[in-house]
């Protein structure tokens, strides 16, 4: 293809918690769209941030058109022509499209004031050139998310660029805008720029990308031409992991259906969902971030309101109105966001543990300290929570122990259906194993367990059944024994199970 415009050599990035990138080398050529692929946590965003100057690599070098770039920062990167279109929109809602496109680069007129007409004219020209159908004088807050993304793209187009990075650009776009985007990309390609394209929508890659590189766990796994590879090949490069003994699987003895989710559909999202959770069984819900699993579960708590469908609990209709109603029915949901929705900071461990179950420690209407201490000590023992005392403030504990406290909190409510959302996120390996044990014990005692996880090995390791979601639609269901990584991943990327050839 074209000349190599941007090159990274032996890039390593070490964070206090983990090594994000390890000895990664890649080349990005002009006139070429290069896909950067990998699972969640593979290191793609870290690499992009290094290219944009937001992070400094711990080791390694960056070369731009043969010249080494030491100590790159955001301003320098932009000045050199490295332009990024991020997933998070950086627009000012109160300003117009044109003002946002030219933000920071306004033309100052004679009297020191911003030349508005120039801005609008130039924006119009830009949009005409790239066939973008947007009014430059429209106020950004009135636009749809998809249109806002187009404005973000316009911002990048307005800058002088040699390298254009697109981070999941089609996530929020409808088909119509995607067509416009792809035309823009082709134009940029024809102009000789190097394009780096990140996406988890594998199906769109052949249409727009020329080459690809794969990262896994911070390591560079390989590159190739899109045309030469199958989807399955690419996936194999992305995930090729051994299923190890970290997952103590014990087959469940599924009993009656505890919860039946029937024809439930959320507004403007996905399709009608059918799901069954049985007692004594772990049902794993897998999917990429944004596939709608958490929101579906929150429908049961009355936090999200579906536009259709019903919930059937133990054979009878269940009115999913509130959290306390769900608790009374024996349903407990443990949040994926410990910090924001899980722990009550500045309060002790026992406070957090007993909060949903205060009636258990009451004598009449007075809370009994004795009862509370007894209950909490036994839970701490049962779950091996490492805390100096029950009165320790919960935010002082490690992430893993905080999670154990939250699980204890859930167990005290004696749930019949326990929903665990990303139960081992951000937790060390040892505690992870403890939690898997707990899940097994729950299963054995007849509780119906639903586990939501975005970690494929985990979901495969502990579930009796796996249901895969993609954009709010169930694309596949697997029993523990028939599940394979490739099959599940294909479903997660949108392919329905029937068409999978394993």
């Amino acid at each position, binding site marked *: 293809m074209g000349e190599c415009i941007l090159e990274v050599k032996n890039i390593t990035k070490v964070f206090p918690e983990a090594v994000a990138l390890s000895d990664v080398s890649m080349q990005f050529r002009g006139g070429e769209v290069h896909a950067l692929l990998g699972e969640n946590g593979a290191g793609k965003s870290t690499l992009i941030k290094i290219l944009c100057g937001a992070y400094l690599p711990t080791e390694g070098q960056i070369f731009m058109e043969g010249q080494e770039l030491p100590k790159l920062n955001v301003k320098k990167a932009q000045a050199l022509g490295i332009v990024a279109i991020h997933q998070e929109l950086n627009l000012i809602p109160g300003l117009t499209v044109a003002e946002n496109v030219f933000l920071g680069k306004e033309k100052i007129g004679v009297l020191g004031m911003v030349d508005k007409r120039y801005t609008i004219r130039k924006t119009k020209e830009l949009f005409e050139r790239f066939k973008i159908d947007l009014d430059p004088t429209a106020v950004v807050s009135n636009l749809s998310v998809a249109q806002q993304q187009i404005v973000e793209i316009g911002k990048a187009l307005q800058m002088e660029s040699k390298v254009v990075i697109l981070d999941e650009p089609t996530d929020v776009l409808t088909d119509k805008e995607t067509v416009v985007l792809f035309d823009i990309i082709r134009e940029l390609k024809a102009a000789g720029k190097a394009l780096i394209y990140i996406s988890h929508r594998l199906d769109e890659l052949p249409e727009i990308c020329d080459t690809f590189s794969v990262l896994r766990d911070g390591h560079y796994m390989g590159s190739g031409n899109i045309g030469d590879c199958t989807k399955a090949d690419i996936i194999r490069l992305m995930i090729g992991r051994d299923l190890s003994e970290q997952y103590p699987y014990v087959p469940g003895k599924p009993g009656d259906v505890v919860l039946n989710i029937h024809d439930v559909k959320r507004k403007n999202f996905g399709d009608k969902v059918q799901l069954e959770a049985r007692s004594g069984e772990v049902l794993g819900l897998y999917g990429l971030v944004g596939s709608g699993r958490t929101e579906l579960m929150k429908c049961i708590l009355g936090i999200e309101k579906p536009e259709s469908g019903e919930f059937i609990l133990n054979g009878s209709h269940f009115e999913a109105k509130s959290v306390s109603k769900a608790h009374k029915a024996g349903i407990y949901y443990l949040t994926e966001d410990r910090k924001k929705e899980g722990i*009550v900071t500045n309060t002790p461990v026992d406070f957090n543990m007993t909060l949903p179950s205060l009636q258990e420690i009451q004598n009449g209407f007075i809370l009994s300290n004795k009862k509370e201490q007894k209950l909490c000590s036994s839970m701490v023992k049962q779950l091996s929570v490492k805390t100096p005392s029950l009165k320790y403030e919960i935010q002082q504990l490690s992430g893993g122990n905080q999670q154990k406290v939250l699980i204890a909190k859930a167990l005290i409510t004696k749930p019949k259906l326990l929903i665990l959302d990303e139960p081992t996120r951000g937790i060390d390996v040892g505690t992870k194993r403890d939690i898997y044990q707990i899940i097994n014990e729950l299963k054995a005692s007849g509780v119906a367990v639903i586990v939501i996880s975005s970690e494929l090995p985990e979901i495969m390791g502990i579930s009796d059944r796996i249901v895969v979601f993609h954009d709010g639609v169930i694309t596949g269901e697997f029993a523990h024994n028939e599940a394979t990584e490739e099959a599940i991943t294909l479903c997660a990327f949108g392919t329905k199970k029937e068409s999978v050839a394993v």
Partner: protein
Amino acid sequence: MTLSKRKFGGAAMLRKYGIILVLLVICVAVSFMTDSFLRPSNLQSVARQVSINGALSIGVCFVILTGGIDLSVGSLLALTATTSALMGESGLHWVICILIGIAVGLLVGLLEGVLVARFKIAPFITTLATMTICRGATQVADGGTSVRSPGSGFDNFFGVGSLGPIPMPVLIMVVMFVVAWFVLEKTKFGRHIYAVGGNEKAAHLSGVSPKKVKIIVYIISGLCCAIAGFITCARLSSITPTAGEGAEMDAIAACVLAGVSLDGGKGSVGLVFVGVLIIGVLNNALNLLGVSSYWQDIVKGIVILGAVLLESATAQRSKE
């Protein structure tokens, strides 16, 4: 993470109970500067003087614990007392007048709670508005003049009377503090208050209704304003149109001194009592020493700043 118990204990103790030390130091210092301070009659009058702020600060404490704020307490104090007094003028028995005054306090509290919890209007704005409305309503009701209290029965119960050696306002205030402590420490509802203030979303997912909790604390605040209003009215046998002006500041200051976090979820009502005492002792001391009222405000401000710095200085440590 190895936070040794001793290191954790020392800073936390000072942070929590440092304010008691401050009160003791002030009392000791003042008793050296003037011998009027420790006279039993003076201590009694200090206790009576703080009862109004004490009653108000309990309601404010409940609201702040949930992460809210109540700026309307001073105005609501005037409105409830004025309503009771006007009912007294129409000839109703003073107990009925009290019930009507309480009803007004509960209703305004309910309104504030609903605006904050259901309509999600920021507490600062809501109570700023009700503060102005209540003050206006008071002046419409009393026509700009003071109104007599509903009679000597009322005056005795809330103001002038005593149970043995304890003046009634002091007794009422102490009972309120005990009940408040009990509710916050020993009941389900108390836990719910701390949970909503500490992390509303986590509380919700634990089956707590943040809406209900917020509405109820504003109702409690309304009740406290009514009681504070009765005490004010009884002490002076009348209620003036400007009664309670600025009282919200002393109530909030007492909570701040006590280490009640304005973000919610943290604080002990027992220490609020100490905060109330500190402000009362300071006022009394400065009066006894003949310091002009403008210097009094400066000293009070310095003390509050100092106490808050003390709290944040010791809080930093425990974040490590």
